[in-house]
């Protein structure tokens, strides 16, 4: 499973938008290998049937589609605000 651990560290961390320091990379290598060993017990288990995305049967909890007023400011914690907009770094 060594290849997988290496792949996870190098490739997946980039996809996950995390930049690991050399120190983190070194420390995580064995830890991730150990956890993957644990996860491989699931991968190698013989199990059929339906997946349980939820643990309890419940009806769809959508609320009525009508406008509701916020009694709080959704931008209260935004730092880079211009008027009623949030300023972001360039997208393209």
């Amino acid at each position: 499973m060594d290849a997988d651990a290496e792949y996870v560290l190098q490739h997946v961390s980039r996809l996950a938008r995390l930049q690991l320091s050399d120190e983190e990379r070194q420390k995580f290598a064995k830890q991730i290998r150990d956890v993957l060993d644990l996860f491989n017990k699931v991968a190698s288990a013989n199990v059929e049937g339906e997946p349980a995305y939820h643990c309890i049967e419940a009806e769809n909890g959508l609320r009525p589609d009508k406008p509701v007023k916020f009694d709080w400011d959704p931008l209260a914690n935004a730092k880079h605000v211009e008027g009623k907009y949030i300023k972001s770094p360039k997208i393209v």
Partner: protein
Amino acid sequence: MQAAYAPFISVAESIRFEITPQSLLPGVPVAVKDNICTKGMRTTAGSKILENYVPPFDATVVEKAKKEGAGIVGKTAMDEFGFGTFSTNCAFGVPKNPLDPERSCGGSSGGSAGAVAAFKLPIVSIAESTGGSITCPAAFTGTVGITPTYGLVSRWGLVDYANSLDKIGTIGKSVYDAALLLSVIAGYDEKDATSLRTQNTDYTAFAKPDGKKLRVGLPKEYFSSAVDSGIVKEVEMLADRLNSLGFELEQVSLPSTELAIPTYYIISMSEASTNLAKFSGLRYGLQLEFDEKQNIEEYFTKVRTEGFGEEAKRRIILGTFTRMAGYKDRYYLKALKIRKRIINEFKQAFAKVDVLLAPAMPILPPKFSEIEKLEPAQVYMMDILTVAPNMAGMPTVALPIGRINGLPVSVQVIADHLQEGKAIQMASIIEGLNGR
């Protein structure tokens, strides 16, 4: 108490109680886990990425507690986003166990349990569990923790860890205290799409033993060699005592327990890795300066890299992996199938018995010096007794039954979905045996 045991990340500067003659919690101090939003009061979820976050609203559970005359005394220390078993992964100090400050309060709701154990006041805590974060700290501090059925308590205003697993619950000094707070915070909330349409229930009515003899199941996998033999012995002694009092006891089997830990961690990390994408550095939380040259990708990466702690990074990376194209079937989907099997095994057990009785944690509260030596995979193994009921969304009450060398030994009483009444009733009977 804060200086000695550090249960809080933030302490209220002043407390306002709105009391009426009908209030259920008149003047009661309530500690709130720091991943539950409190209006005007910093809410960090134990993470640097939310260091300065002050919510402009109260979570539904906080609003409900305040409406019943309670006052929020502080926000309790926790593992970052709930990622831990000992509350040592907190960016703002580690809570110490009031029974022995060299030992952990457990996690991830460590501060919530620590605050209840530390103060000689009728204090209660609003806590939260994803895979055992109420049972574990309740067990390590000798307090009572109720993890309700998934969906019984609104999650609106909770900083989510894993949406299909998170449950807000309560910790108190007695079964009655924890049940009273649950009665206040439970109930349907249209703001939470997963909220169950239940009737308001007074759970304290179940905290008075009425002589009814419940059928008790003992899941054999929860008494294995992975559990400290002293703890097993205490729980077996309790079972014998119940038997001699006329309770019907039956051994049951939950065979998928052996896969519960990797199954739980695959599901919870998969969900956490998508959940934490909301910390984009734009609307709230850590927001860095940027210039015209920087693009959103670089900015997003920088915010996450600076804001998340070590365990959060590990879980994001692993959770991204387990749900990636090419790996999803092997890990995430398979784990969901095992979860289904786990739920079915619980349902089969509850066709025969009213409640399950088992040790709450496999170890006594460890010393911080022992915790330091553990690797992440070893820490995950500590959740062997709690992840399965949590994955199945079954209500659980954890309570102390004795001491070994001065350290608390606790059991968990597990019931079927929405049968918290039975779990509270059984817990109350056990509490009564210990002289309360």
